[in-house]
């Protein structure tokens, strides 16, 4: 099941990369492959960093009894929020011809970070950097990609 979820998340990031590649190439500044490869590699790095931060954070919080192990959520389940976002991206790109794949992608990163943070108990109890790290990283990666996109288009 976990493998299937991971494959599904991979397909979502692949789709984001394809549409960002198309957007970049239609702007005429860079080729499709530049946009595609940069987004795909970026997604891989972001996914790894945020997931590892979440797993390490959850482990530390559980060991300190600040997170109930029964409340631990699989990071793959959380990343599956990219599925509805990707569906909307495809529909709006193909049907409405909106070239705003970067808006969808950046929002996905930021919101996934928020969900990962919430799953660690962000916003409840005493503030702790571990709880907020996935949220901060999601926001930072989202802004960073906005800058990269600005350079690409």
């Amino acid at each position, binding site marked *: 099941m976990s493998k299937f979820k991971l494959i599904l998340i991979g397909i979502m990031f692949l789709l984001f990369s394809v549409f960002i590649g198309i957007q970049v190439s239609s702007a005429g500044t860079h080729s499709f492959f530049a946009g595609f490869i940069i987004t795909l590699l970026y997604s891989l790095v972001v996914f790894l960093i945020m997931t590892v931060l979440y797993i390490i954070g959850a482990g530390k919080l559980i060991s300190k009894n600040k997170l109930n192990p029964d409340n631990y959520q699989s990071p793959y389940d959380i990343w599956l929020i990219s599925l509805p*976002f990707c569906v909307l991206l495809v529909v709006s790109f193909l049907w409405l011809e909106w070239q705003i794949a970067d*808006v969808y992608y950046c*929002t996905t990163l930021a919101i996934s970070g928020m969900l990962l943070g919430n799953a660690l108990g962000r916003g409840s109890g005493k503030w702790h950097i571990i709880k907020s790290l996935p949220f901060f990283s999601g926001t930072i990666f989202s802004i960073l990609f906005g800058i990269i996109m600005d350079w690409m288009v």
Partner: protein
Amino acid sequence: MNGENCEILCPDKINRIESIKHIIFLMLNPSSVLTDGQVHKWYLDLILPAFAWMLFFLQVGLDRHRQSGYPPGKIVLLSFIGLIAGYVVVFLTGILMSMLLTVFGKNIRLQLGISCIALSHTYKTFSLILGLLYNFFGYSSSVAFGTVGLLATLLPVYSGIRGLTRGTTFLAPVLAALIGLIFLVFWQLVLKIGL
């Protein structure tokens, strides 16, 4: 009991403060509507999405006005259509979500589904208020801020359904996608039909 004591002890006042606190908590954490099971005045909750969609169509009108001299009367009319249609569509979507959850074995009251989707529009409202500020500086803001707002609306819906349906991994993303699609189609219908 004199007025000064009532400032501190009056039960009516305490109740009012508590209910305002509760409403603010629910607006910031709408997914808890589904999990705590408390029934709300859903018809009042629907004012929030109506306001959010009105703000959105106001920005569409302002963008069109800047690009092609769209008349101010039509901007007001478009915003009004957004207000009414936002109320109705979010109401219907809430009913649909509750019914679908019932089909998948999670029996929740219709009012809870409506309140959850309605209060999920808090983030959209924030996004569109920012978009309006951006619009005042002369930039087209409706599509970008509308899209971010739409996606942010799905976040509490997704969390709420996931909290309700532990063990059925794919129900939350599929229902969230469906609700997002309904809003996207609604957005386009208003623009196509309404002027």
